[in-house]
């Protein structure tokens, strides 16, 4: 192994790439949820970032107030945020299904503002730190780099969740119903499937997925009310680049863009916050429907 790559110490270089992969896993999980929700509900869920943020806060809150640790949070946060998702879908979103999707975007934008504003009022804008669980603390020396265990866990966990979701949607009976519901809800309803409940649970599942990503992220980044809105815009760009048609496509796009971002941070740090948007512009010029999208 060489001492340095591109003039940067190998250890630092690989560290940045790993960080990029970690970010990419979050992009993948969030854009996956966005795509599934959009497919069935026809709503681009701007609140997805806020749900991710709420997941992280749920983890922090259950540790602070009830002393429930990380492993509990992995279950509690998705359940709580999923329940909130049920509430949102039942009371608000279901009134919008026959309208232009733009209204769904605007309503969920309003929801995101409310969630962010309430948490800012309660906890301020400064970050809360969340400890890395003991079992995953420390690092493993791989010889060519020192791998922080927690980061490896995040990548593995979110990849398994993404693949699990893919399997559920593409290979199971339930997934077949979901896909059929995306194509033609009236027909699926006529076959005796309770489509409104299916739609509700889909939104809840998307919300839970976002919350799970939030819990995974909590020990790595500062938990702040703003963490969701900063992320959701990048995820929108990821979704535009990948196209919302394919699940594996959005997972791959998310991971690849995270890696590219990490690489840019090493080679040309000034551009790292805009590189995803530049790629989006380039992809739009060449393939307007996105890399995995279907041309109309």
């Amino acid at each position, binding site marked *: 192994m060489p001492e340095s790559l591109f003039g940067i110490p190998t250890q630092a270089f690989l560290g940045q790439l790993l960080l990029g992969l970690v970010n990419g896993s979050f992009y993948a999980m969030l854009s996956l949820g966005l795509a599934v929700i959009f497919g069935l509900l026809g709503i*681009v869920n701007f609140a997805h970032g806020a749900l991710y943020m709420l997941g992280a806060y749920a983890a922090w809150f259950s540790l602070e107030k009830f002393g429930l640790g990380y492993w509990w949070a992995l279950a509690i946060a998705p359940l709580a945020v999923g329940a909130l998702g049920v509430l949102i879908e039942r009371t*608000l979103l279901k*009134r*919008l299904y*026959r*309208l*232009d*999707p*733009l*209204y769904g*975007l*605007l*309503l969920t*934008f*309003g*929801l*995101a*503002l*409310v*969630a*962010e*504003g*309430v948490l*800012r*009022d309660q906890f301020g804008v400064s970050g809360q730190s969340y400890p890395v669980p003991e079992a995953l603390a420390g690092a493993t020396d791989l010889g060519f780099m020192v791998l922080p265990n927690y980061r490896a866990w995040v990548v593995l966990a979110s990849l398994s969740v993404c693949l699990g979701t893919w399997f559920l949607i593409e290979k199971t009976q339930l997934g077949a119903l979901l896909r059929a519901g995306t194509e033609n809800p009236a027909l699926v309803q006529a076959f005796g499937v309770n489509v409104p409940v299916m739609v509700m649970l889909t939104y809840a599942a998307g919300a839970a997925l976002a919350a799970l990503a939030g819990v995974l992220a909590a020990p790595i980044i500062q938990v702040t009310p703003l963490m969701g*809105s900063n992320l959701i*815009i*990048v995820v*929108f*760009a990821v*979704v*535009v680049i990948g196209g919302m048609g394919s699940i594996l496509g959005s997972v791959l796009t998310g991971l690849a863009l995270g890696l590219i971002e990490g690489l840019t941070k090493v080679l040309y740090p*000034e551009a790292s*916050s*805009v590189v*995803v*948007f*530049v790629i*989006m*512009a380039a992809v*739009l*010029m060449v393939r*307007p429907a996105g890399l995995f999208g279907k041309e109309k």
Partner: protein
Amino acid sequence: MTSPPATPTAAGQAPRPAPAAPHAERPARIARGVVLALLLVAPFIGLYPVFMMKALCFAIFACAFNLLIGYTGLLSFGHAAFLGSAAYATGWLARSAGWSPELAVLAGTLLAAALGLVIGLIAIRRTGIYFAMVTLAMAQMVYFVCLQMPFTGGEDGLQGVPRGALFGLLPLADDRVMYYLVLALFVAVFLFVQRIVHSPYGQVLKAIRENEPRAISLGYDVDRYKLLAFVLSTTLAGLAGALKTVVLGFATLSDVHWSLSGEVILMTLLGGMGTFTGPVIGAFTIVGLQNFLADQVGSWVQVIIGVTFIACVLAFRQGVVGEAVAWQARRRRRAG
């Protein structure tokens, strides 16, 4: 050029503004006259001039935005980028380069137009919900560029921009002179938007909004029309930003932030998309609300804005003016 027949049947339920009468009806005309008179005497009846100027700048911004969502059916979620970049450019030119205010404002506005052309070329490759996401992402890119550029002052923003003298003659430091300049420009923009919408070009825009495939099949180069509408809208948004910097004397990151892009949507939605006066009413309401609430409730302003958003989408999609027009139409129908 003949305008294609208006088609009332859009695919699905597009964001449908109230059908605006081609010419304002009598009550509406009277109301406009009263409002204009009020605006003209505002500095003499104790209305805080800086607040009025700020609200007028945002009214210009909302009118510009409305040209796009209300008459072309394109939801831009990144309009703050144009307001903000013009605000920074004007501020820097007036302060550090020592340009006169009229040239600085002109340059800022032109910058927004150029930026609108570039972003428009990319964004119009997608429609509907994707258009919104693309504009949001491109605007976020502009935000990051503004955050990192040395001359924007980063987190502190650009402070202490002098107002100077218009054409070297009129001292803009006098709030009244500044106010009448802003008012004149606002009236000009208002009439300009009205003129555009009623022109044959505006009719084509509305045809695109109602049914894009049909407009294409009638032989219109839809992309070119949309791009021009986008650039017109961003240019006016730039004018709003440039003026705002001269009025307030600073440009900050909140001028390019996505939350401002959201606010201009709310202003237009609240007042009534696709109505001429709606965005103006919306802008005054939101700016007034923010000014008033900031003292009262502090950080709950964002929550209140969010709740207003939700309420508008659920129950009030035509906005104040749209609902008023619909109510009047219902009353007239009942009267026979």
